[in-house]
């Protein structure tokens, strides 16, 4: 097929799409579209379509044709309902009736919604309270220019005090925590999780559990689980193990609830 012929055929497809669209958008009679003829045309052109644009145009035409068929279905459904009326007959009746007759007739089938709007004492009081609290418009709409602040000098200690900077970096803290773990373990190689994490206050315990989780994740220590005894030990490594990242990681959820902490504290004191 020549390029010129192809162009003509795709223009025909565009016209088909426009016709189908007019049914949907402008309420054109869906039976004005000859569906069989369009299907035959689409069928005839289809083997010649090659590019993505041509195939997309064909698919679009099919889609709009399907909506026309749906409109035809709806039309048949509407005709079979009790609300169906011949529009021409109805239009003629409307034309012949005078406006008084039309209005009288309409009011017999019109049941307007009843709704009330009434102010109450409580809503008045609320509105007054709002009014009293409302700033004058001159104040509310005041245009504030950007505040000019003098630049000054601050110190690191001041920033630490304001919690803008941390006293130590996170890794410095982690290293210190690792050293503490190694000291507590001593010759035993491992320590019970709660004996290491547990502290005098619950918030401190949570902090220590948080840091411990990083010790394990970053290869400074590992966990040893004894499920039958329901015991968890933490074992520090002598050197951080970076190769841990290459191995399959397993998450171990450990509950550090306040009940668990109380239980641990009572056992320790007992």
């Amino acid at each position, binding site marked *: 097929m020549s390029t010129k012929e192809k162009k003509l055929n795709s223009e025909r497809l565009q016209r088909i799409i426009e016709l189908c669209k007019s049914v949907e958008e402008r*309420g054109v009679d869906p039976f004005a579209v000859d569906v069989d003829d369009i299907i035959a045309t689409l069928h005839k052109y289809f083997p010649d379509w090659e590019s993505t644009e041509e195939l997309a145009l064909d698919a679009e035409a099919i889609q709009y044709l399907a909506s026309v068929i749906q409109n035809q279905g709806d039309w048949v459904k509407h005709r079979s309902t009790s609300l169906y009326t011949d529009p021409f007959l109805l239009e003629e*009746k409307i034309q012949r009736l005078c406006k008084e007759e039309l209005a009288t007739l309409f009011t017999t089938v019109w049941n*307007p919604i009843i709704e009330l709007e009434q102010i109450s004492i409580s809503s008045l009081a609320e509105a007054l309270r709002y009014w009293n609290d409302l700033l004058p418009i001159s104040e509310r709409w005041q245009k504030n220019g950007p505040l000019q602040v003098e630049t000054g000098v601050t110190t690191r200690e001041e920033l630490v005090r304001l919690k803008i900077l941390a006293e130590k970096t996170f890794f410095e803290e982690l290293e210190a925590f690792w050293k503490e773990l190694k000291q507590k373990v001593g010759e035993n190689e491992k320590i019970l999780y709660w004996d290491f994490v547990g502290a005098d206050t619950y918030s401190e315990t949570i902090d220590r559990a948080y840091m411990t989780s990083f010790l394990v994740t970053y290869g400074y220590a590992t966990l040893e689980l004894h499920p039958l005894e329901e015991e968890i030990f933490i074992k520090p490594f002598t050197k951080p193990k970076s190769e841990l990242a290459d191995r399959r990681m397993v998450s171990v959820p450990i509950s550090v609830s306040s009940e668990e902490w109380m239980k641990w504290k009572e056992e320790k004191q007992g």
Partner: protein
Amino acid sequence: MTRKAYYARKIKRAAQLLFYKRHMKPGVKGWELRNALGSDYPKILKVLDDHLEKLDLQVKTVFEGEEPAGKPTLEELNKARFFITLRGGLPSKDAKMMGWRIDDIAGLATAISFIISKKGKAPREEVEDILRNKLPGWRVDINMNRYIRSGYLAEDENEQLYLDWRTRAEVDQKALVDLLLGTET
């Protein structure tokens, strides 16, 4: 609390909710009534409807989408909107008192019945052409906008008109078409 007192209290609350305007749109959604009155709100509305009958008023239910063929489910009721409307018709001279001129009502009747006959959707231009036969041109646009603003008609981006929520709540569409067709001209 006795059963009678319980229902009396609930009916009073239902009447307050339905009569007083609470949102931009009148009426109350089913789920709002369920929250305020409890899950047996359809029963309470039925009793309220019986009371209102003596005053020629009714509790009207407008379902989301098409009206269910059989008894509506609780889910359908929760999504529906409930209104209080007149039960019987309104004399046209009273309608005039409500801020509606006889021209406005006649125009509304024409627009609604024309859209019904066109399967619930008609181009605004066609509806305006019909109205222009009986109303001065400058009034047609004003009236159409008023019908749309009040919720009787809705218009889409293609200037197609549809029947909106207020028509579904207030107008007995079947009776309107029957009456129009039954007129002797």
